């Protein structure tokens, strides 16, 4: 959903000529939503049944899907900002691991309270992103390299903090115990239907959508990805924008790390392994271009849920993880091919 077309006030613009709408462009614009619907239909058709009930549609199963995707979803939302600027952040999974470890350590060994811990971890993630963004812009390094180094650094720090141990979180009142309220992250609200992790994901997604579509900063993000030099000449503070998007992924990764620790009641240096790739896949399936300048938050959310739903169907049918990987691969390629076709149709080259 290309964003730019939505955010411009079409109605008020001086349109006289009727312009043709390319059906392919429409498909790409809504590709992740269409994909989500297709996967859902496939889920209903291929779902195993028990006593005539479709297991895929069972409220427990739905809750499981949206809970399972909430961590990568939070990360993918941050990643969308970065990718729209034509950047990439490979450090997100590692920062999640570091954040989970620090969360557990602060509460269990450090004796910090809930609020202090959460604030400290969020600040840590944000600062981590700011450092990466600053190094990348200051020394004109590819974000790929800087965040690859960031990934190693975050994993290394997590190992140091955790001593390569699982840090279990036990709840209670007193030293060495975490405040019981933290365990709510692993629970469900509203009559035991909606997972709390999912609520965090949805709120974060909503805020991000508003920021991207309606604020000056959001417009700057598109501008930097659309043409960095043109943005600079137009007076856009390009370096600030770039540093900010890495700050956002850092913040998102820390938030996901806190959710992770709360859901699983431990922190480990290996948490979030490979999440960066799942998040990038969700963003791309959501229609955001790796070339920058185009993309949408709604697409990312739909892409995230679609990947989760797909994995769920395959699991319900006892299909091997190997097949799941192949199915994901096929969908990523399909999404990329569709985008490439539209670019070529617009006469804008590869």
């Amino acid at each position: 959903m290309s964003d730019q077309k939505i955010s411009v006030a079409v109605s008020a613009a001086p349109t006289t000529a009727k312009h043709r709408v390319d059906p392919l462009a429409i498909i790409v614009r809504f590709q992740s939503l269409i994909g989500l619907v297709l996967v859902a239909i496939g889920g209903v058709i291929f779902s195993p049944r028990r006593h005539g009930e479709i297991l895929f549609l069972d409220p427990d199963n739905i809750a499981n899907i949206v809970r399972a995707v909430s961590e990568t979803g939070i990360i993918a939302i941050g990643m969308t900002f970065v990718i729209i600027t034509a950047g990439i952040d490979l450090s997100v999974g590692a920062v999640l691991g570091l954040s989970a470890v620090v969360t557990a350590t602060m509460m269990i060994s450090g004796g910090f309270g809930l609020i202090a811990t959460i604030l400290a971890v969020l600040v840590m993630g944000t600062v981590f992103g700011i450092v990466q963004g600053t190094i990348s812009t200051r020394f004109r390094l590819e974000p790929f390299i800087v965040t690859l180094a960031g990934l190693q650094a975050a994993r290394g720090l997590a190992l140091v903090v955790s001593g390569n141990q699982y840090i279990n979180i036990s709840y209670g009142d007193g030293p060495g115990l975490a405040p019981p309220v933290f365990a709510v992250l692993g629970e469900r609200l509203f009559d035991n239907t909606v997972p709390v992790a999912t609520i965090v994901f949805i709120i974060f997604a909503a805020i991000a959508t508003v920021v991207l579509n309606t604020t000056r900063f959001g417009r700057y993000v598109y501008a930097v990805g659309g043409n960095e030099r043109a943005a600079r000449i137009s007076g856009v503070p390009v370096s600030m924008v770039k540093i900010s998007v890495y700050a956002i992924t850092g913040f998102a990764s820390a938030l996901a790390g806190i959710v992770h620790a709360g859901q699983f009641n431990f922190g480990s240096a290996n948490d979030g392994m490979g999440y960066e790739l799942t998040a990038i896949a969700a963003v791309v399936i959501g229609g955001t271009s790796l070339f920058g300048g185009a993309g949408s938050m709604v697409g990312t959310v739909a892409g995230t849920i679609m990947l989760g739903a797909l994995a769920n169907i395959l699991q319900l049918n006892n299909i091997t993880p190997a097949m799941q990987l192949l199915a994901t691969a096929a969908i990523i390629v399909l999404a990329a091919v569709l985008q490439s076709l539209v670019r070529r149709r617009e006469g804008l080259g590869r």
Partner: protein
Amino acid sequence: MSAPLLSVTGAVKRFGGVQALRGVDFDLKAGEIHALLGENGAGKSTLMNLLSGVYTPDEGEIRIDGKQVHFNNPREAQAAGIATIFQELDLVPSLDVAANLFLGRELMRPGGMLDVPAMRREARQRLEAIELAIDPARLVADLSIGQRQVVAIVKALSYASRVLIMDEPTAALTVSEVERLFAIMRKLAATGVGIVYISHRLEEVPDIADRVTVMRDGRVAGITEPHAPQAELVRLLVGRPLDELYPERAKSAGKTLLSLKNASFRLARESAGWQPPDDISLEVREGEIVGLAGIMGAGRTELLSALYGTGLAGRWQGEVAVDGRPVKLESIHAARKAGIAFVTDDRRGSGLMLRMAVGLNLVMSVIRRISPAGLMSPRRQAEAVRQSFGQFDIRPKNPDIAVGALSGGNQQKVVLAKEILGNPRLLLLDEPTRGVDVGAKGEIYARLRALAAQGLGILVASSEMPELIGLCDRIVVLRQGRNVAEFIGGVDEHTVLAAANGREA
């Protein structure tokens, strides 16, 4: 003479409902340089693509030496002796000259190893055959645009040697590079090669062409002598007499807006052939259009960029004042604060976000103004877009399509409209009509003059001398980074050229 080298009769080409060619006849003799003129959309690119095998005609036929031919792809056209040099040169910048010339047809040693010395030797011979001394071992990335152009010609001729089709080869060249290219073209023609020369630049036609075909609306509007009066060519091109391409000059100018006295700066990046400026003195007054003339490397682009706070290392030296007050133009931020706006010579590379909508591009320099408290206001955005469409006749009149899909002239109008939305006091323009057709040029000139009449000061650099002479109130000539002469508008072209080249007039 018997049958012409190449002839096209009754060519028709449709794309969906659009008829791009409506029965075109065209012929080319051996040893002839035949200029093909036309505005954007006139059909000259389509015709060129038929000749080079990219498209096949729906009706009509193509003959070589009187024998009918059918090209299903560019390879077949090459095999028949037709070589095409497109605007985007098909060269690999990261490879050396010899490797580019032999790309896909590398000379090998027995055993499957590349025979690099043989390719370089051969490349040197071919380059020397047209009197071009380029080291075949140099990277294409290190060559000037003019040198690349010649390498592309040599490459094309090594595929096919009878017909050479050149699409706007001079668009990015400086005056002296154009002269060198023309010399090479004449030399090739003397050996019997027929050259189809496609261009926007009317003033080049008498210098190079033996014959001129003008296209309009998918038809041949006329075939004339190259020395036909320019007014006649313009009438054929646009289909009506265009009395005044250039608007009337200003009667008077206001107070001084920008003034440089003994100013200089250093470049952030070294660039070949460039000498750091010392002692630039010039001024631009309100309501005035001032031109910057000079050969490549004279520092036109560098001066404009530095006035916009980019591309310079450290600070400006000497006196730089806006409105009589000294300013430090060391950042884009500072320049914009002083009311300066800049339109680059590279609209695709640094002027526009090609994949984004026209409307979004237009408001790019006024995002702050249309986002009170940091929130984008759709109403203010639509107002700004409407204002731009009111000022410039941007076609299609639709702010929602990607700006990359517009023609060059319309893209240029978007870039200009974008900067004008910011209400600058001084507008810096670098090559404001590069790759823009005559109709759009006239509109841009009229618009600039109207803006100047409202008090805007304009400093414009251009390598098109007639443009500077026709448009500007005053022309400042730069040579080796300093201002060496100044003329009032309407001055004779040779006088300016002489000053730019450091010769006596």
